[in-house]
């Protein structure tokens, strides 16, 4: 988007992320106190599918889209909390009641997509919820794109390596080598990628020339 003039252009449709807000599955990991109740009530007011749990679960239940986490209380519980910050299972909204560097560091390590301060106030929760989920989805897309590109680079390199093995050991030129891999793939109903891997593996076992 080049510029922001108004929130929407004429007749623009409401974004997917917002339309689906009532299908979001939210897990609140927070002690059962006033703040926890206020948070839960407001998430239900917004209309999300919300459940709360305390103490922190040893394992995250499946099918959760957004987790709200009471940070200090999880830390003080001195119990291992499972959260793979590099490949998280859900968007994370961290609830903080202190913001000294120890606590902020914990927020950074968890790579939370949103931060909410105690005491809970209803205003701002909706925007933080939707924004956190959008940031999470956005990062996951970037991560998937990186994985695909890395796979692609590997795949090209493997195909080249397999072709070279065939050229070196069978005296084929590049075109012939490639045609041999492709016809093998078609015969065996496998991908050229899989054939390339098979050739590389075989060459290692049989001690063929690789370069």
């Amino acid at each position: 988007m080049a510029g922001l003039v108004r929130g929407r252009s004429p007749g623009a449709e409401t974004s997917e992320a917002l339309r689906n807000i009532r299908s979001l599955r939210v897990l609140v990991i927070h002690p059962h106190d006033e703040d926890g109740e206020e948070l839960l009530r407001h998430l239900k007011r917004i209309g999300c599918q919300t459940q709360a749990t305390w103490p922190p679960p040893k394992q995250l239940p499946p099918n959760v889209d957004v987790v709200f986490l009471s940070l200090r209380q999880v830390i003080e519980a001195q119990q291992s909390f499972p959260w793979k910050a590099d490949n998280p299972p859900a968007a994370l909204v961290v609830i903080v009641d202190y913001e000294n560097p120890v606590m902020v560091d914990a927020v950074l390590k968890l790579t939370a997509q949103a931060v909410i301060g105690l005491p809970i106030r209803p205003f701002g929760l909706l925007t933080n919820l939707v924004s956190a989920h959008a940031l999470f989805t956005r990062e996951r897309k970037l991560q998937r794109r990186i994985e695909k590109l890395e796979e692609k680079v590997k795949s090209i390199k493997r195909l080249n390596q397999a072709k070279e093995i065939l050229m070196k050991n069978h005296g084929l030129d590049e075109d012939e080598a490639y045609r041999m891999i492709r016809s093998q793939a078609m015969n065996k109903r496998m991908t050229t990628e899989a054939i390339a891997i098979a050739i590389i593996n075989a060459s290692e076992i049989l001690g063929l020339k690789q370069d």
Partner: protein
Amino acid sequence: MASGRGGSSEPWRVGVLFSQSGFSAVIERTQFNGTILAIEEINAAGGIGGRPIEPVVYDPGSDFISFRRYAEHLLGEEQVNVVFGCYTSGSRKAVLPAIERKNALLFYPTLYEGFEYSPNVIYTGAAPNQNSVQLAQYMMENHGKRFFLVGSNYVYPYESNRIMSDLVTEQGGKVVAERYVRLNSEPADFDRIIAEIAETRPEVIFSTVVGQSTAQFYKAYRAAGFEPETMPIASLTTCEAEVADMGVAAARGHVTAAPYFETVDSDANRAFVARYRERFGAGEHTNMCCEAAYFQVYLFARALAATNALDAQSLREALLGIEFQAPQGPVRIDPDNHHTYLWPRIGRIDGNGAFEIVREASAWVKPDPYLVTHTLDDWSSAVGQVAI
């Protein structure tokens, strides 16, 4: 709270904040009247616990900064902690931080765009699921699906237009344009919009123009020679107050969705209208915002009778789930979200400038202020059947 605790004849002091001047005075004056009428009625009947309600009145003149300053003054020096007031969302937002900081209570008698909840506010006007959906359905069934959107330039029209766009698009209709005018508009501001309407010939004009701009717009429409039969203006805000302001000629034939019109056919409403005219003049008219301002004082009074104290905490508890026989029908504060169960209606302005009610809900509709995706099914399922 000193004001809520003293001797047994000491009045219950409450703040009243409606504009007597400025761009939204046309409608806010009727909200002020509705508030005062209810207070006078309650006092005439002996007050609450033998003590009268005493309104502490300030005029913010349609200016948001004045709204905030007067709210702070009411909650500070005046030691009031219940306030009736506000029309535009801007004024509500200006007042809200002071209300929350003092843990006071605001009664807000105006339709608005939803997506707000404060433990310190009671919302008695319509949420979008109580007027937008019904208006969209009526207009598409009776007039067509090509919509032209015109609004004042602020948050309420933005969000109302989003909802209307979604509903129209969902039904295969089309929004041909979305235009905004400044809040303090001049008649000439509408020239370009009228020209565009003439050019695009929509089947429905959806107006979220508010305040004195409303009369400017309807008059410009009339001056352009457009016909309400083929291209009516549909609105959520144009009510009896604006009709009086613009005159019958400009108003006739246009459509509004609201939980209340002066023409509601019930004993409770006939009595309300009669007392209103007796008090403020035979030529005066009630309207949806005036009625909400009126019945919310009664909701407050019922709660106060139960608590016999003015603190927000206990008043709030007494208010949640409370019911009252309002002029529009029975209403109820939703304990989940502090908004009000209301009765959606569609009115068309007749040759006398009165709203002929052409459709009305057969049951109250629960408010859902956080609903993002409205669909026409909501209306039919919530309403059961509609009367024509």
